[in-house]
């Protein structure tokens, strides 16, 4: 029991430290560069890609952060932007679905590639799969909402 508690305390500390060291710098950098031209160009380019799964320009930045750094960090920015930009439920649903299927693309994939997994299947196939699942569920959600409103 004491050992479990010790694991919990040290594990929690590790977790909090990792989240703190990633979230705070991301937020500061995001806030400083959000309005700049290069940042907007990157987000706009990414928005052109994720438009195909039903995401609009305001959802592009949180999706990009989640895709690169992880669900928790992207989720944190989604939480912020839901408040700040009043993102619609449909956008949050599509973002959550996409990021559920693929996130932390470099870190998570590398762990398994180091173990001997094929880079094509772990990266390319997974992104294609994520896009297909997101499209399918986005369509299903739209249908459900339409039926529900009638």
């Amino acid at each position, binding site marked *: 029991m004491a050992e479990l508690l010790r694991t919990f305390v040290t594990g929690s500390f590790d*977790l909090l430290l990792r*989240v703190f060291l990633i979230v705070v710098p991301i937020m500061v950098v995001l*806030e*400083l560069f959000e309005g700049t031209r290069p940042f907007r160009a990157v987000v706009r380019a990414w928005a052109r890609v994720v438009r195909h799964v039903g995401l609009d320009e305001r959802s592009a930045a949180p999706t990009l952060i989640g895709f690169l750094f992880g669900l928790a960090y992207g989720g*944190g*920015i989604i939480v*912020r932007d839901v408040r700040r930009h009043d993102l619609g439920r449909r956008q949050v649903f599509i973002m959550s679905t996409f990021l559920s*299927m693929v996130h932390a693309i470099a870190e998570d994939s590398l762990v398994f590639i180091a173990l001997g997994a094929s880079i094509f299947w*772990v990266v390319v196939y997974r992104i294609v*799969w994520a896009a297909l699942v997101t499209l399918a569920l986005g369509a299903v959600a739209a249908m459900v909402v339409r039926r529900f409103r009638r």
Partner: protein
Amino acid sequence: MGSFPDNGVPGSPVDGPAPAAPPGLGARFKRDLGIGLKSGLQTFWVLARVMIPAYGATLILERLGVIEWLARAARPLMALLGLPGDAAVPLIVGYVLNIYAAVGSMQALGLSSRQITVLAIAILIGHNLLVEGAVLHKAGMNGFSFGALRIVAGLVAAAVANLLMGLVR
């Protein structure tokens, strides 16, 4: 901050739309730094409040032997993915804990590279479900549904990949 007659809203919130005429570069840097720190700390706090209880629940599940029990129940499923029954252990470890723990328990299994790839796909799509589900919940989604989605979609993706890899060879 100076006054912006065309802005129309005196004392508008700092995180609203950027004013038409920006203040000096230094002042803007300081203001954005402040907003960034504030929203960083806010986000950190939101995440901490959901992640720590989820992490605690995860540890308790592990201690109660729930992982072993689930892994035994999932053994028969592994054949559908072309994997040995023992591969259920890293899969369940990944679902409940995280990918690092899953990789740790994969190392002992002596899987072929095709099997490693198939298992990797399932775990990469579904892992750390309690903690990440808590974050999704905070974003206004149903964490349980997304957990179920990730398990099912991950297993289907892995099965499809296994079939396709069989065709290519």
